[in-house]
């Protein structure tokens, strides 16, 4: 990690999952003249990316990823107080959920954490989500990407339902890109349901999400 030494304690607090220490260090850095933008770009972004990469290599685990993103959420609230919003704009906004009939969430949670670690704002709408709710929540959140997870082949038709609803609306079709993944979901199935992207695992989901944002 090539992070300036001034941010060392902040980085440690993120890695250790220490929310209070993280927000305290952030306030100190702001008070000593560091800009919110610099703190975000030079410390938080590379730190989260590194943790996400370590998770991908199984050098750290899901709780570490979740705790790190929890710390960053707290830090971002502090940074927002002292910045203009656009300086720390997320890479993109992803609405993620498990499709109707499926209650598995760990895969979805892993992808959500990895996306956050890579700079996305993620709105997690939970499990067994009806197709109409996916679209409604995506509109409310003004999402860029609708990400759907399924661990059961018999829930895959509900992914197709969401995509059909989006394609049936010109506004939604222009706005939302759709990313799918999960155990039985293959590249072929993703193409068959007309998804815009597919992630065989969480790492590929991030790569695909970044690629979809570049297309916008």
């Amino acid at each position, binding site marked *: 990690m090539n992070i300036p030494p001034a941010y060392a304690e902040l980085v440690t607090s993120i890695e250790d999952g220490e929310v209070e220490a993280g927000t305290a260090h952030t306030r100190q850095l702001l008070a000593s003249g560091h800009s919110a933008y610099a703190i975000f770009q030079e410390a938080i972004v590379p730190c989260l990316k590194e943790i996400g990469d370590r*998770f*991908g290599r*199984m050098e750290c*685990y*899901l*709780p570490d990823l*979740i*705790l790190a993103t929890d710390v960053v959420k707290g830090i971002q609230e502090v940074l927002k107080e002292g910045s203009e919003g656009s300086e720390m704009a997320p890479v993109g906004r992803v609405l993620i959920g498990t499709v*109707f*009939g*499926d*209650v*598995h969430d*760990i895969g979805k*949670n*892993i992808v959500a954490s990895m996306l956050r670690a890579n700079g996305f704002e993620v709105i997690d709408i939970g*499990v067994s989500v009806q197709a109409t709710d996916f679209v409604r929540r995506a509109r409310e959140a003004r999402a860029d990407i609708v990400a759907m997870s399924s661990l*059961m*082949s*018999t*829930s*895959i*038709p*509900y992914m197709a339902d969401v995509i059909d609803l989006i394609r049936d609306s010109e506004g939604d079709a222009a706005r939302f890109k759709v990313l799918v993944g999960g*155990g*039985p979901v*293959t590249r072929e199935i993703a193409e068959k349901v007309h998804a815009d992207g597919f992630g065989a*695992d*969480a*790492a590929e989901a991030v790569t695909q999400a970044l690629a979809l944002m570049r297309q916008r």
Partner: protein
Amino acid sequence: MRNRSRLLDIIDKSYSGPACDEHEFDMAFVAAGVTRVVKKHGIKLDKSRIVQSDDDMNDRIWQAGVEFLESCGVYNTSTGRRMVFTRREIEEWVKSAPREAIIGEGRDARLERHRRVEDLTPPIIIGGPIGTPLSEDLYVPIMQSYIQEPIIDTTTPGTLDTTFGRQPRTRSPYEVVAAWEEVEMIFTAARRAGRPGMSIGCVQMGISEVGHLSAISWGGYRPVDWHSIAMFSEMKTNNDLLIKTAHSVRTDGIIQSFYNPILGGLGGGEEGLAVLIAAGLMAMQIIYMATTHSTAPVAAMKSATTLPQVLRPISAAIAGLSRNTPMMTDVMTSPLSGPCTTALLFECVAAAIVATTCGVARLMGVRSAAGVVLNHCTGLEARFNGEVGYAALGLSREEGNRIVKLAVAEYEPALAVQQPGKPFQEAYDLTTLHPTPEWQAMYDDVKERTAGWGLHFM
């Protein structure tokens, strides 16, 4: 069965247990709980080995599992409450687990029983594609290719890719239609293979309680079949699953529970995974009053039970349970590779030896190509999986470890990029239902090579 009388106690706990936010459950109870017991009990797997034979460590993993289960409980996502159990309840209810059961009927009836570590009695061999999607036109011949294998004692089907040409949808009338189509097709396959009384693992198309309740009824699946009920990662259940449980208990069914914790997930690394396996299987005995308890853990980035870092925790946890409980366990051979690859067969060697030497009551397989590629499965690899299980009888875990490491060396390169192999119709003659010469030759070659390593095939 004597462990079934607590059904109402279990349902009550879903409504009376302490309320808890799901995120808090994940982080404060599961993640923190596993970390705490791993540290407290000094759990450390020997990474130089795959088959873990330090029984002091294996016993501590079991103890850690008990303690973790006591502190964590099981979360019911339908009620938002933790089902909690005292130490006394855990110990008593685990002790009440059945040590043996008869599955199937007539000449196809089989006795399954608790096995010890390095036990000389063979495990029950479950042969089936376990949820792999199968096209309707090939469903019967594919399943017949498993059931016709003499070494296979019981089977569990694949899923239907379509039902009467339609896409099956969970929680819809299609689910009921698909569940009954599964019943009709699997019983047809069993009759065609000459084994009408074979016990069937069900209901593959009963993803929700809708299909389960419908197909386990008059004219459908029988009490002699084993009714699958899942606990999902990590340490969670819901009312749909408890409805399945209540139905199977009241219809006097054989309940096979299964739990697939995730390496790298909330339990952390290998040591945490071992604790989760132990705790999870005991939890399912308690809440589902199960007869058998299955696990097929996977890694966060790779869905296979044959990764060395998954096999290690499996071996330790299963040995710990075998040594300290009467529970009948099973482990699924779930390789990444598919039919007509030697990698698939070597993955079976590793998984089957680990499971058999560490004391499983049942050896389940094979979920070829990770169970996700249409029709990529055949009875031949299930036959081989069973043969390796039998050949592993009499092996010490030390000897088993030596052979497993040889097998891992053969397939580990194939773990980087999945080799799905060939679909059934290219691996088998559809008229004779025999393997093609190519697939037969691969099987013969791998069997000969592994015999040379010290596996004594019958």
